[in-house]
């Protein structure tokens, strides 16, 4: 692996511009594996700004998607992402080298999402007294819509706990063990949720005509 030096030099930018004056870095380095993330996290703990920026660019899209899949609007997901990073920053000393990185990030992201859900529920409960809100149906999947939108629509009928498990397992590419760590549950429970989610998805997709020779994207 080329990115071993502790000074962060190996986290070389693929492209982008470093604005040295205000320490703003717009680099998306070629990182992907867990060991890279682990190394970046250790450098981040040591105060390496480039490693921090790299982590932000590397992980933000999937954390953002994690929030979007849970029905957060885009501005809400942006807010949640920022809040998550601030919390990650404040709690970065709780990560220990050698532990899986993604469960640590997702456990904090999940905590932020749950907090947001509680806050919004309290707000909604206070606002309901003003009048009946019209029921809004989940948007139907449409041909050619963006990936995140397709994914939201596809996972829409699933309960929240199953949705997050499918998102972490299939989209973020985490293992059963990692999902169990991130959700503070057992591997058996994660397996069960994934199984139930797949049953529901199978029903839904079969109803939509999938599995009968169709090969395209979402209808």
């Amino acid at each position, binding site marked *: 692996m080329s990115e071993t030096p502790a000074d962060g030099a190996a986290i070389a930018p693929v492209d982008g511009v470093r604005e040295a004056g205000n320490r703003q870095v717009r680099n998306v380095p070629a990182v992907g594996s867990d060991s890279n993330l682990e190394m970046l996290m250790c450098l981040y703990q040591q105060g390496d700004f480039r490693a*921090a920026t790299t982590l932000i660019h590397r992980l933000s899209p999937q954390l953002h998607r994690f929030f979007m899949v849970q029905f957060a609007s885009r501005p809400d997901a*942006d807010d949640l992402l920022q809040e998550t990073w601030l919390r990650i920053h404040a*709690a970065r*000393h*709780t990560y220990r080298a050698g532990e899986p990185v*993604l469960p640590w990030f997702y456990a904090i992201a999940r905590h932020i999402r749950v907090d947001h859900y509680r806050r919004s529920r309290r707000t909604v409960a206070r606002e309901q007294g003003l009048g009946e809100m019209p029921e809004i149906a989940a948007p139907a999947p449409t041909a050619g819509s963006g990936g995140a939108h397709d994914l939201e629509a*596809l996972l829409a009928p699933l309960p929240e706990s199953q949705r997050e498990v499918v998102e972490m397992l299939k*989209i973020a590419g985490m293992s059963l063990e990692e999902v169990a760590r991130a959700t503070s549950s057992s591997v058996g429970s994660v397996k069960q949720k994934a199984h139930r989610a797949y049953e529901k998805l199978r029903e839904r997709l079969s109803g939509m005509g999938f599995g009968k020779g169709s090969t395209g*994207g979402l209808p």
Partner: protein
Amino acid sequence: MKDREIDEILKQAAASGHEVDPAVLDRVAASIGSALRPVRPLPPAWVLEGGLILICAVVALVGAARLGFFGIEKLSGLERGLIFSTLGILVWLAATGFVNEMIPGRRRCVAPGTLLGVASVALIAVFAVVFRDYRTERFVSLGMACLIAGLLHAIPTGLASWWLLRRGFAVDSVAAGLAGGILAGLAGVTMLELHCANFEALHVMLWHTAVIPVSGAAGALLAWVARFRPGFWRPRALRS
């Protein structure tokens, strides 16, 4: 439809890149960069667990030394072994659970709620095996005295444990509070088993064991209250 086909559909749905507004990322990077300095990672989990077990042992021993080791003196070797090995295992489980709750992404071996049930049932079962005197004399007054003494020893254990784990980050503060409360309650029960010479089965089974759920509930309640007053519970580093 096979799982593989569902996997494929999910993969397709997620395939197109998910973009985040670069301005948001720049804002995050800027806010983190302005406060970036090296941090000292938490000690290994086994050190924290060992510290918690030590706190429990010290509080129980000091408490019993102050009040007198009347209970353990009256117990036979086998009874001592049975009671204190069970308490030891439960304290270890509670310490592990508390540490796991205070570090994000740690494997949760036993959920705090389950641990509460397991600890209560296990102790009642052991006490039922060891103590066979089913008389009840001054059941409530003596029982309340033991319950209060147990809880009074749970308080310093809870405070010291919180201090030890103050740099941790609880993703589920109520679960963490419950785990901490259970641990503190177990220290209280240990002190009672060292000190209390009242071997009436119902007294021990009810009033001694009750320290654990009461202490656990107090810990969870405090954490729940602290959820609405963030500065109360969260470490200084997390206060905004």
